[in-house]
């Protein structure tokens, strides 16, 4: 499974006061709060961890069918641009892109999945039971869409798909996440 989450930093600054009393305590563990508050740019660190928790939640939600507002169920150990997010007995791998305008995280369950991910155009997204998929070469693959403010990112996980047939890669809206450079 795959999950992503984008945060428009300008909109986040307008919508949320992360310095508000009690705000961080509701989102983060004591260890995560320490990471955030001791970091060079606490605001970026707040949204960095938050985007990872949200991306990991999408995998949790899709695998379990459970809807909840449970940010503290998801644990991040560092602020690096890649890292593990742990929840319950599960762990997912995250990659986070931080720019001056947005923060975007993708989570996958298997490290081998990084080269099975491709960016999608809006028209490629198909909703089934309100969940996004992408249809490619006779099969449905899970997709993930995140929109916030000025930004929208869509990715598909072509597990057992890209390995078999790499021919459609060039038709993709964007390239693989591994090639996805910061602007």
């Amino acid at each position, binding site marked *: 499974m795959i999950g992503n989450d984008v945060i428009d930093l300008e909109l*986040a600054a307008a*919508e*949320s006061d992360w310095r*508000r*009393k*009690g*705000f961080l305590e*509701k*989102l983060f563990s004591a260890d995560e709060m320490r990471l955030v508050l001791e970091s060079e740019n606490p605001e970026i660190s707040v949204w960095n961890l*938050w985007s990872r928790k*949200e991306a990991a939640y999408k995998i949790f939600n899709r695998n379990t069918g459970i*809807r*909840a*507002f*449970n*940010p*503290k*169920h998801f644990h991040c150990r560092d602020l690096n641009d890649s890292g593990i997010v742990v929840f319950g007995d599960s762990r997912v791998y995250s990659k986070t892109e931080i720019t001056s305008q947005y923060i975007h995280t993708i989570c996958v369950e298997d490290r081998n999945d990084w080269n099975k991910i491709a960016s999608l155009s809006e028209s490629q997204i198909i909703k089934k039971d309100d969940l996004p998929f992408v249809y490619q070469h006779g099969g449905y693959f899970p997709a993930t869409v995140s929109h*916030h403010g000025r930004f929208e990112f869509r990715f598909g996980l072509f597990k057992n798909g890209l390995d078999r047939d790499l021919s459609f890669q060039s038709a993709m809206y964007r390239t693989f996440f591994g090639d996805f450079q910061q602007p």
Partner: protein
Amino acid sequence: MNKAETIEKLKSIVKPYVKNAEAFENLSEDTDFIRDLQINSANLVDVALDVEEAFDITIDNASMEKMLNVKAALEIIESKLSEE
């Protein structure tokens, strides 16, 4: 405080975070904060904090997890108020 009063108080709390005005106008117990009102997930924390302040209660994690719609929020507020 009766249920209608609690709903009115809750409505005034969520209003600043609502992105879908029409859903807000038609708010009922079945209204979902994220799907219907399109409240940003980070702002659900603000809703929880505002509810804590307005009703002078503490919303623990287990309760916040369920606070995704009006019905759940009302149940949490009522149960916390009865504990006081």
